[in-house]
Structures are given as C-alpha cells and as structure tokens.
C-alpha cells in the first residue's frame, strides 16, 4: 500500500467528492419534482391516466442505469432535430447528460415508492377529510401527501444510497467525480488498489452519513409511531 499517492492526490479526490455530491443532490431534487406528478397519476384509478406513468416507471426500473445514461450521452446526437435545436447545447455536455439520466432514473424509482405509499394511505384518513368538507385538492395537499412522505421515508433513504452508488457511472463519461478521480489517479500512477479503495472509503463515508441522516429524520417524522418512553 502506497498511501503517499493518495495524499498527493487528495485535492483531486476532494474535487471529485464535490462533483459527486452536487450531482447526486441535484438529480435527487429534479427527480423528486418529477416523481410526485408521476406517482399521483400512476396511483389514479383512471386507467388512461395511469398507463403512461406506469410505463415510465416500468422502463426506468427495468433497464440498467448505464444503458439509460448511454442512450442520452451517446444517443442524442443521432437525431438531427436535437442537434439543430438549443437542446444540443445541453446534450453536448457530459455533465448535463449524466444529470438528466440520473434525474429521470431516480424519478422512476421514487415514483414507484410514492405510488405504493399513496395507494396504502389508510382510507379512514381520506374519509375523515371528506366528511370535514375538504375539496379533492385540499385532501391531497393536507392529508394524503404529508402522510405519504412520512411513510415513504425509509424506502426513500435506500433510493438516495442507490443514487449515490449509481452516480459513480458518471466517471465513465469523462466526468471527474469520485470514481473519475480514482480512475485518473490509477491511470497516472498505476495503483489500482490504493486509488479505488480510497474512492470506496469516500463512498462508504457518505453512505454512513446518509444512513445516519435518515435515522434522524425518521426519529423526527415517525415520532408518533415510536413506543412511548417511560
């Protein structure tokens, strides 16, 4: 083990760490914004309304993230219409391609998580809201969605970790994230053990922090489910 190589390249790793964190947080935010309407439509009883979002979820959960990312990064240039439009400015950037792929992917997974929890909302809660005279929109905003987010918390924690791990694919399309940094260090010094283990430790540390954060969040948001402390 040659730790000196890692210490010398620490700035590169830290730059990669920053890219990874920014990439994961922005794709999660965009993905969540997309996931809410997808989940609401997929959970609807109207077959026509739920068909398209369900197909979306099926596709993004059923195919590898790598293929989805390549479809956007390598694939978009195939279309003359894309190359001629302003979209080409976006899809020329590896960074933007990764962000779009990750956001669409996590929207599929998060959509499925939320769909499940929306459908499992205890009907009594909805009934109570109806008998209080709330409109449909009010029921969604005040009752169903808050309760859904609470119950989706543990599953969403797993999805965040999954997204963190998936984000390492960005290193394959020239982005210098944690994995990309490790790849560069390995290529320059030919130290596969040191370079990839260092990246692995960074990922491990972030994973622990996410797990810890969600534990805290569940402690807060699931307070009413905790057994009473005597």
């Amino acid at each position: 083990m040659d730790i000196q190589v890692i210490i010398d390249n620490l700035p590169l790793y830290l730059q990669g760490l920053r890219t990874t964190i920014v990439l994961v947080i922005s794709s999660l935010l965009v993905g969540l914004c997309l996931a809410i309407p997808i989940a609401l439509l997929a959970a609807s009883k109207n077959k026509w309304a739920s068909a398209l979002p369900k197909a979306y979820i099926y596709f993004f959960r059923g195919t590898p993230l790598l293929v989805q990312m390549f479809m956007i990064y390598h694939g978009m240039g195939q279309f003359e219409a894309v190359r001629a439009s302003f979209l080409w400015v976006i899809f020329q950037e590896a960074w933007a391609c990764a962000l779009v792929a990750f956001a669409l992917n996590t929207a599929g997974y998060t959509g499925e998580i939320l769909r499940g929890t929306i459908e499992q909302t205890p009907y009594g809660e909805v009934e109570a809201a109806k008998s209080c005279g709330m409109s449909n929109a009010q029921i969604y905003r005040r009752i169903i969605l808050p309760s859904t987010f609470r119950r989706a918390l543990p599953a969403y924690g797993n999805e965040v970790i999954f997204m963190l791990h998936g984000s390492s694919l960005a290193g394959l399309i020239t982005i210098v994230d944690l994995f990309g940094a490790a790849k560069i260090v390995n290529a320059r010094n030919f130290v596969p053990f040191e370079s990839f283990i260092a990246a692995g430790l960074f990922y491990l540390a972030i994973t622990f922090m996410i797990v810890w954060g969600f534990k805290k969040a569940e402690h807060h948001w699931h307070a009413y489910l905790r057994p009473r402390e005597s």
Partner: protein
Amino acid sequence: MSQVVAYFPLILKGMLLTVEVALLSLLIAVLLGLIGAVARLSKSRIARGIAGTYTTIIRGIPDLVLMTLIFFGGQILVNDIGEKMGLDYIDVDPFIAGVLTIGFIFGAYFAESFRGGILAVARGEIEAGHAFGMTPLQVFSRITLPAMVRHALPGIGNNWLVMVKTTALVSVIGLQDMVYNAGLAGGSTRKPFTFYCVVAFLFLVITGFSDVGMRWLDKRYSVGVRKA
C-alpha cells in the same frame, strides 16, 4: 431498421453472455449468501463480525468501484504471485473477474434475504429435526433450507432483477456483453440511440421471463401453504 436486423445477431450474442454472467454470478452469490446468512446467525462472535463487515462494506461501496478494484487490482495481485512463482505474465480474464465481482457483491444482498428467511422458519420444525437425531448439517439441508426459501423468495427475486441490471457494468471492463456490442453497432452505424433502445428492450425481456420463473418457484415452494 435493416441495420438493426444486420446487427441483431451480434446483440443476441451479447445477450447470451449477459445471461451467462448473470446465472454464474447467481450461483456464487447464493453460495456466499448462504454462508453469510449462517455466519450472521451463528453463535461465534468472529463469524458474525466478519459477515457483518462484509455486508456493510459491500452495501456502502458502488458496484462499479468494486468491479474496477477487483479487475485492475486482481491483475496486479495475479502478476505479483506469478512473478514470485516464476510464471509468465497471466492475463486476468474479464469474464472471471466480472462473474466473481458480481457474485461477491450480491452474496451480501442474498445473505440479508436468507437471514430473514431463516429467522422466519418455525422454531419447532428445527427442534423436531434435532429431536430426530439429525446432525446440524442435516437439519440445515433437510429442514431449514427448503422451508426458508418460501420466505426468502420475494427478496431473492428482487436481488436477481437488480443483478441482471448490474451485469451491464461488465461492458466497462471490456467484456462483450450486449451493452458493449450495442456500443459497437451504434458506433459503426451512427445510430447509438436505436441500439441502446434495443438493448433496453432485451433487458425488459429478461426481466419478463424472470417474473414468470419467480411465480413458478413461488408456487412450488408454497405447496402446503393455504392462502386466503
């Protein structure tokens, strides 16, 4: 369209490799998973510690990092050992490296599913086995294992689907699976989107068949269980 037809055999060849990698990794993962689950439930503190560290590390590090680590690192390790033994340069086969890595990664996930399944087996059945004078190994292979599969099956199914998708990563270490071949076909026809779409569809075909298989397994292992 005619280009898709022309390159379809190449993609199908890749698909065969994808399925091969997935099935062989499944074999390794199930073996490691059983060992891991038994270790996590054992009375020995050391065994529990090792199994716990294994699952934590695997679940905390991305598959891609582990795969490149084992592929490139394994090459150096093999070279060092080979040099000491006075052998010629040995190439690490990407197929073996890929299968080992994916099996190693998913062993950790299977261990968790199996652990849950073993815990769900009725205590009395295991005690009855012991009372009949079976050895611990006999109790495990005759009673715990078959009874546990039913409880572990949903977890196994999920892990298998994730595993099939993870096999796409072997294209990164140069294995010519269907993602790799789609890249080749897309490059020479300048239609990468079309070929990645074909591959995505083929992945959905594999998962579709897996669903049918899982339903069959579920039926087979739930014989004698009454459902409402």
